[in-house]
C-alpha cells in the first residue's frame, strides 16, 4: 500500500467525520396526560431532524409549542412515545445516566444551591460522570475544569462563591460545568432568559466559538427570533406540538409563516450579516 493511498483514506475519513450525522431525531412523538384514562393534555407530533458536529440548532416557537418537551426527549429525560433519538448511533433514552452524562450536557437556566459552593467546586461537578467509584478528582479533572472556566472567560471567578456572583457570571460558570462534562451534545433551555443583552450576545458568541472549536453539537431552545436567526445553522420551528419546518434560518424566516406561528404582524429583511432579521410591528 502506498503512502499516498493512506493519505487519501485519511482525508476521506476526515471528510466523513465532518459530515457525519451526530444526532438523529427520527419520527419522535410524545404525549403527556395527568391521568392515563383521560385524553392527553399535550402531545408532540412526530418530529424529525438531524444535526452534525459543530452545528447549532435552534428550537424555535411560541409558548406551549413543545420546544422544551422536544429538548427533554433529546436529553433522555423523557422517553418518546414512538420513534427514536440516536446520538452517534446509540438510543439516548436507553443509556445509563452515567454514560448519558458523558455524552450529553444539559445547561440549566438556574442552579439552586442548598449549601454554599465555590465556582471551581461547581465546575468540578461536571467531572462526576467520568470519575471512578469513590471519586476523588484527579489532576486531569482539575485541568479539564480549569480549561472549561477559561473557555467561557471565567477563570477569575474560580474562587468566588456561587451565591455572590451576578446572573451573567453564574450562567457562564454553569456553562463551564457543562463543558467539563466533555460532551458530544450540549443542550440549553432558554439560556438567555434572565440575561441582559450584552450577556446574551456574550453567551451566544461563546457557544458559536465553542461549537466550532470543540465540535459540539449545540441545541438551544429559544423564542428569541433574532438571536436564533443570527446564531443557528438550523432552525426547528414548532407550533402547538407540531414541528412545522426544519432548515437553515434563511429558508424558515418567511413573513407569512412566522406571522402565523407567532400570531403577530412582523417584517422579515436580510441583515448585514446575510441572515434574516425580524421586526415585530407592535401597535399596528
Amino acid at each position, binding site marked *: 500500500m502506498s503512502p499516498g493511498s493512506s493519505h487519501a483514506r485519511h482525508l476521506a475519513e476526515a471528510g466523513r467525520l465532518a459530515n457525519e450525522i451526530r444526532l438523529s431525531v427520527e419520527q419522535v412523538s410524545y404525549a403527556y396526560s395527568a391521568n392515563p384514562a383521560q385524553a392527553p393534555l399535550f402531545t408532540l407530533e412526530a418530529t424529525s431532524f438531524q444535526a452534525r458536529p459543530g452545528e447549532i440548532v435552534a428550537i424555535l416557537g411560541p409558548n406551549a409549542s413543545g420546544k422544551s418537551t422536544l429538548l427533554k426527549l433529546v*436529553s433522555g429525560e423523557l422517553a418518546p412515545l414512538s420513534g427514536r433519538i440516536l446520538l452517534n448511533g446509540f438510543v439516548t433514552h436507553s443509556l445509563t*445516566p452515567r454514560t448519558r*452524562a458523558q455524552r450529553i450536557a444539559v445547561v440549566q437556566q438556574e442552579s439552586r444551591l442548598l449549601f454554599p459552593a465555590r465556582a471551581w467546586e461547581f465546575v468540578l461537578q461536571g467531572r*462526576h460522570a467520568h470519575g471512578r467509584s469513590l471519586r476523588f478528582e484527579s489532576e486531569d479533572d*482539575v485541568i479539564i475544569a480549569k480549561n472549561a472556566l477559561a473557555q467561557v472567560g471565567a477563570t477569575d471567578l474560580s474562587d468566588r462563591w456561587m451565591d455572590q456572583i451576578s446572573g451573567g457570571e453564574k450562567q457562564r460558570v454553569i456553562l463551564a460545568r457543562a463543558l467539563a462534562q466533555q460532551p458530544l451534545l450540549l443542550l440549553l433551555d432558554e439560556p438567555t432568559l434572565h440575561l441582559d443583552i450584552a450577556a446574551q450576545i456574550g453567551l451566544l458568541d461563546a457557544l458559536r466559538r465553542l461549537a466550532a472549536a470543540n465540535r459540539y453539537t449545540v441545541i438551544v431552545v429559544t423564542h428569541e427570533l433574532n438571536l436564533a436567526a443570527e446564531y443557528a445553522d438550523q432552525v426547528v420551528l414548532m407550533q402547538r406540538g407540531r414541528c412545522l419546518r426544519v432548515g437553515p434560518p434563511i429558508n424558515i424566516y418567511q413573513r407569512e409563516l412566522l406571522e402565523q406561528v407567532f400570531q403577530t404582524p412582523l417584517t422579515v429583511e436580510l441583515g448585514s450579516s446575510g441572515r434574516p432579521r425580524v421586526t415585530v410591528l407592535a401597535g399596528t
Partner: protein
Amino acid sequence: MRPLTLRRLLLQCFALLLILFVVVVIAIKFGAVPVSLYALGRDLWNVLLHQRTNISSDYVLIIQNIRLPRILLGIIVGASLSVAGTSFQALLRNPLADPYVLGVSSGAGLGAILALILEPHLTLSPVFAALLTPLGAFLGAAATVAAVYFLGRREGQIDSTTLLLGGVITASFISAIIMFLMSTLTGNLRGLSFWLMGDLSTPLQKSVYWFLGIGFIAASGAIYTTASDLNLLLAGEKEAMHLGVDVPRIRLVVYIAASLLTGLAVSVSGAIGYVGLIVPHVMRLIFGSDHRTLLPTAAIGGAIAVVFADTLARTVVAPNELAVGAVTAVVGAPLFIYLLRRRLA
C-alpha cells in the same frame, strides 16, 4: 482550585479522633465516683500489658463494666444519628432535616415498642428475639420517612416548610400512639418513658454491641459510597440526573441505610434529638459541604457530641441522672430555631 484529596480527608478525621479521645477520657474520669487520671493511666497500662492482677477492682467495676460500655454505646449512637441526619438532609434537600425533628425517631420508637409487645407472643430463638427490637425500630423509621416524604410534597416537589410541619405532626401523632400503648402496659415496659427521652444507661448484652457496630459500618459504608452523588443531589434530582447520578438507586440506598441507622440508634438509646441536625451543621461550617468529608467528620462529631452530652447528663445532677436526650434538646432546640429563622429571613 483545591479539590479534596484522601490525605486531607484523613488528616481532618485524625484531628477529630484526637478530640474524641480527649472527650472519652473526660467521660471515663467524671461520674458519680471520680477517678484520678493517674489511676486511670496506670490501670489502662496494666490492661495493655495483660497484667490482670495489678488492675484495681475500682477499674473493673466502674470503668470496664459501667462507663466504657456506655461510652462505646454513645459513640455508635452519636455517629449513627449524625450520619442519618446528614443523609436525610441531602435526601430531602432540607438542611433542617433530622431523624428526631422529622418524627423518624418516634416512628422507630413505636416500631421498637410494638416489637417488644409482640415478642412474648412469638416463639423465637434468643438470637432472633434480640434482633426483633432493632428490626421493629428500622421498619418504624422506614415507614415514617416514607409518610413524611409524601406529606412534604406539594405539586410533586418537596416543600421544605411543609416537610418540617409534616414531620412535627407525624412525631406528635406517633407520640400519642406510644402514650396510649404505654398506658395499657404494666411492668417493666413502663420504664420505657425514660428510654424514649433518650437514654444510654440501659446495660446491653455483648452481642448487641457487635450487632450495632456491624450494622453501623454496613449502613454508613453504603451511604459513603454515594457521597459524591449526594453532593449533586443537593442541586436537585433533575440536575443530578443530567450530571450522571442514578437518582432512584441513590435515593433507595440512602433511604434504607439512613432508616437503618436511625432504627439501630433508637432501639438501644431511645430518641436522642438534634444530634443529626446540629453536628452536620457544625461540620459543614468547619470542613465545607462536600459529603465525602462531611459524612466521616459528622460521624466522629456525632460521637463526640453524644459522649459529651451523656457525661453532662451523668454529672450535672449527680448522684441523679438526666436523660441524655434532655441535654441534647436543651442545646439543640434553640439552635434549630436560630437556623430556621436564618433560613426564612
